[in-house]
């Protein structure tokens, strides 16, 4: 009676055991990479908006402060999306016949809101408040990136929990003086390792055991 398996099957069976382990590992790795990819987090992707508004032009070019439009960033959870009236402050005169701005004028004429598409959309089970971050020395660009270099707005950070925790575990690596919160392209005067811990102390920023408490963000 002949053998069912050839002798080479020995090698194949050993190889397949290894292959199984590596396939599972590779699969796990692929899932992890995919989970953090821009495809899943929707970071670094331009989103079509009703008006091609350029932060690069308004912030970088003209030097308008973030708060001119995002008026509630220091006092409320939401930074605030400006009403069309804020656009009209200048665009009643500047580029007042530009076809690009017709949606803005139509919105002002008809009292209908411009329907901007939310770029930073946190899951609803996360509590986030702009005012406390601004008050404790977290710069706009720390989360939003250098918007003065963005012709169209995009999400810079992954907005995933591990990204939030990066700072909530080590706030001293990210905080800046309150006077620099709205600065774009900020560079610490001396090294961050020096001023970071001092600012954490000065601003009474809670320790990482408090900041990483589940109910700080999931409440």
């Amino acid at each position, binding site marked *: 009676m002949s053998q069912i398996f050839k002798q080479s099957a020995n090698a194949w069976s050993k190889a397949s055991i290894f292959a199984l382990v590596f396939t599972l590992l590779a699969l796990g790795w692929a899932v992890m990479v995919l989970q953090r990819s821009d495809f899943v987090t929707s970071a670094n992707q331009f989103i079509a908006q009703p008006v091609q508004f350029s932060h690069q032009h308004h912030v970088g070019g003209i030097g*308008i402060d973030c708060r*001119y439009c995002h008026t509630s960033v220091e006092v409320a959870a939401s930074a605030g999306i400006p009403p069309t009236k804020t656009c009209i402050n200048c665009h009643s005169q*500047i580029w007042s016949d530009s076809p690009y701005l017709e949606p803005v004028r139509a919105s002002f004429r008809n009292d209908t809101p411009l329907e901007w598409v939310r770029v930073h959309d946190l*899951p609803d089970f996360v509590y986030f408040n702009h005012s406390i971050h601004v008050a404790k020395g977290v710069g706009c660009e720390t989360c939003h990136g250098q918007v003065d270099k963005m012709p169209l707005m995009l999400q810079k950070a992954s907005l995933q929990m591990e990204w939030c925790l990066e700072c909530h575990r080590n706030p001293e690596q990210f905080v800046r003086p309150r006077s620099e919160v709205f600065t774009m392209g900020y560079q610490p005067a001396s090294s961050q390792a020096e001023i970071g811990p001092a600012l954490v102390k000065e601003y009474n920023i809670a320790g990482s055991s408090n900041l990483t408490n589940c109910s700080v963000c999931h409440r």
Partner: protein
Amino acid sequence: MRSSASIRRAALVLAAVAVLAGCRQDMHDTPRYEPFEASTFFADGRASRAYPIGTVARGQLRADDHLYTGRVNGEFAETFPFAVSHAEMARGQQRYNVYCAPCHGQIGDGNGMVVQRGLRQAATYHQDRLRGERIGYFYDVITNGFGAMQGYAEQVPVRDRWLIAAYIRALQLSQHAPLEAVRPGDRPRLDQTPEEQLAPPPTAATGH
């Protein structure tokens, strides 16, 4: 026998995965409004609601004319409705630089960046008419606008408007200060160019 049990088990796992996927989506986007979200419920499509016309929220009755309109007995007020501390003046400066400097410029000469980009020439605070104007007038213009300038009532809260007005007074003083107001040691710097003035004083640079 055995195969049908494993098929059932696999089906159960698949169903669980499908159900869990459903959960994830719902919890990411629960049925409540986020700020500024669109609404299918309200006729105008906005989740953010305005006060019904004619209503006053508790504690928000604007009975103090001086504070809220900048007028006393119908005339522009000549005084502030509250005492302005030095720290509040600093806030006025900061608010001025955010909301006013784009057009009026950081020194109040009306040559801000937006004017340089084509907006109609903004007023300089250093003209005689505005130097002689009452403080309530500035509050009124910030609130209601003037000429090409739109009102800033939506962007700047009442108290901040007064602090900005206070800072405008400081700007006016800065451009019309008598020589005696400058400390004798600082007077030579008045002849320097702006670049020289911005450079750190030589004593600080040598560090002695």
